[in-house]
């Protein structure tokens, strides 16, 4: 890199850096514009959470109303429940995702047959493209009370049929399973590319020394995958307060009987405000989520930094 040139004070200015690395900055430009337009610019709108919004005055012209918009969420009596549900579900999802994806990636990397590997990879990747709407209708067919295959099998073993419309317990298992089904294929590709990038000579050396497949995985692959895993975990933790609204809403919908165990912040807010469509109140929940996410990601990142400085995100 040419950016070793320094100005009089011994420091590189941004402009000098840009001049020195034109190409790199140009490649960074699209991402910069994208984040600017879709991530940073709309941030100013968060003030609507503290306003009594009306269409004519717009976001900036509407009158302030302090913390009024936050009241409904904390008075709903469910603030703690849904916050807890959101965090717990996301933790389970994250664990399923990281462990599942690592496992699949390692298995795939050990498969010798290239065609088989590519085929499996593609098939595993497919659910990523299937929307929750489609998956939801699939789930309801498979679990149909009278005609679903699950209940037919249960009937064969003389077990009571499952009614997923009224039984919240089923969903505590079903939701992580479905999440894994949809995302593990996608995650395994990230891990697989990381594995492919590992130094092959380590493996060759280990093989010569007589290491078994399991020993190679245990002592070479897993330790070398640690930075990738930590990055993905940190990214996951960053959105731990954001429930996967699509998933929960398509699968559970407005079924009151399941709500205490499946309600997350996003669905509670959607349900409460769908009728009166108040943007200020909806934004207050987003604000709450963002603040908590921010605190959590900073804390976790600092913890990681203490243990392993190179793996931290920033």
């Amino acid at each position, binding site marked *: 890199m040419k950016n070793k040139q320094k100005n009089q004070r011994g420091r590189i200015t941004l402009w000098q850096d840009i001049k020195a690395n034109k190409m790199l900055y140009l490649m960074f430009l699209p991402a910069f514009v994208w984040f600017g337009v879709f991530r940073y610019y709309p941030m100013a709108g968060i003030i609507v959470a503290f306003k009594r919004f009306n269409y004519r005055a717009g976001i900036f012209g509407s009158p302030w109303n302090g913390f009024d918009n936050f009241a409904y969420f904390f008075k709903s009596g469910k603030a703690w429940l849904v916050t807890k549900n959101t965090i717990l579900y996301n933790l389970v999802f994250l664990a399923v995702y990281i462990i599942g994806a690592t496992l699949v990636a390692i298995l795939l990397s050990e498969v010798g047959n290239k065609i088989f590997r590519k085929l499996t990879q593609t098939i595993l990747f497919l659910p990523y493209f299937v929307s929750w709407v489609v998956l939801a209708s699939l789930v309801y067919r498979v679990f149909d009370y009278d005609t679903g295959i699950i209940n037919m099998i249960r009937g064969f073993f003389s077990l009571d049929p499952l009614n997923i419309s009224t039984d919240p317990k089923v969903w505590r298992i079903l939701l992580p399973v479905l999440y894994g089904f949809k995302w593990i294929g996608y995650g395994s590709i990230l891990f697989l590319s990381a594995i492919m990038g590992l130094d092959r000579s380590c493996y060759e050396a280990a093989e010569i020394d007589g290491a078994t497949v399991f020993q190679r995985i245990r002592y070479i692959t897993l330790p070398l995958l640690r930075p990738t895993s930590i990055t993905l975990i940190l990214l996951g933790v960053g959105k731990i307060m954001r429930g996967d609204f699509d998933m929960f809403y398509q699968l559970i919908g407005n079924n*009151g009987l399941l709500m205490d165990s499946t309600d997350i912040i996003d669905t509670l807010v959607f349900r409460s405000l769908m009728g*009166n469509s108040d943007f200020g109140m909806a934004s207050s929940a987003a604000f709450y989520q963002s603040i908590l996410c921010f605190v959590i990601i900073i804390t976790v990142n600092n913890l990681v930094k203490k243990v392993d400085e190179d793996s931290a995100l920033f």
Partner: protein
Amino acid sequence: MKRKWLQKGGAVMMAALTAASVLAGCGNTEVPSEANAAGTKEVAGESGETASQTSDIDISEHVDVVGYLLGEAPAGMDDVMNAVNEKLEKDLNASLEIRYLSWGEYTAKYPLLLAAGDDIDFIFTADWCMYSQEATKNAFYELTEDELKTYMPLHWQNCAPIAWDVSKVNGKNYMITTCTPDRRCDVAAYRKDLCDKYNVTAPTKMSEFTDYLAAIKENESDIVPMNMDSQYDLGSPFGALRNEYGDRYEDANHLGIFWNAESDDGQFTPIYEGAVRESYKYAADIMKQWYDAGYINKDVFSNDVRSKDAFLEGKSAVAFGNSVDMQSFLVSAKDKGYEVGIVPLLDKQGHSLATSYLNNGVGIAATSEHPQRTMMVLDKIMEDPEYNYLVYYGIEGKNYVITEDQKIGLPDGVTADNNDYPADAAGFWFTNKDQFLPSATWSDDYIALKAQIEDGMLIDNKLTSFAPNVENVQTQVANVTNVLQQYANPMQVGMVEDTEAALTTLEEKLKAAGLEDVQAEIQKQADEYLGK
């Protein structure tokens, strides 16, 4: 050297392209076409016949009006809109584009559409469809008497003055209401042929359906006796049962607070008190009995196929709707060879509530650039019989014919099933229905029902058109809405273990959510409204 240039150029291009595609999403896609505008101006100049009506209004500028309605576009929509636009170009130098908000998503998209305010001139609205919520947020263009008289002369002339009074929110008007509120009642349809086959007495009210449902469950393994969806049907049989228990109690704005349609006392009662609670318990018990016996589908909350559609496919033995929107259903059922019986869903006194003027209407978006011209277009569509027939029944000769005995029938070879623009299906529910001839497809049962409706079935109440403004109790409303969804909805389908316990929980949760504040606020406004 050459390669380096290529690399550089390629990167620049890529960056530019990506940036452009990102930015394109935010751009305004409206491209005014000058050629088009000029062309139509000429046409407008030629049509002298309408000049008298609109002579003092400047319509030299061509305007594209965009309107939003509920439902889905029928297959024949394009043909109808072409015909409408041909006339509009000539009469008003304008064109109309209709877009649809589907039943499943309209509650979520409606506010966003109005908040964004791009490319929208009018939108369907009603007391059950966002009217007071959006009006209080200034989402609609404020209507004045002068403007209505000038730009909607036919409508102003045809409408009873009361319509203007009842559509006020905070003393201002935002809704162009229908002139002809529907004379209708809620109905449940059942298969008469199956009733006869299994020797079951034909039901005359909701609670008498038990034997019929049992017979279907026992003998027709392919049919779910009552196959309900999560939007319309959820609550339909429950409401019918609740009403037939005693007086008809109406829920103001779906907030769990009821007023008695049979009385003029103007009092609001919460779900958990007095006669409302009794009727709730009665209905919940019957629903639970039906659900436990397997008469009701288990997936009500995730099902979005209305019972009347499932009925026509042989997947449900009961269908819910109202006497107006069931017309085409009855014809289709007949074509399928089903013999259908209709049960009006009435209260104990045999009454149903007359619908208010607010039940169907249009609001003009506050952001509309041409509110006046939009009004002129709406005046034509709602009150000019030629337009009115076109948007409601489709194209004459293709979608409907006028029979010799002055009735509306289907052309030869067209059936209810293959008609690509069925009556009432395109969402123009707010037009002047007095202009329509009776339909040739009405069965004797349906004609009898209509007579019954006209003959004192409908009762009026001052509170019918009362639309409370809940701005001051937003917090409580949000939480009450949420509690009702979680604790009242399962009861309405019969899914709860113990109805008494469920009612007690509902009461506790509603009180904690602040239902009493909401009740007090609404009662206060109702007292003012009734002039107490």
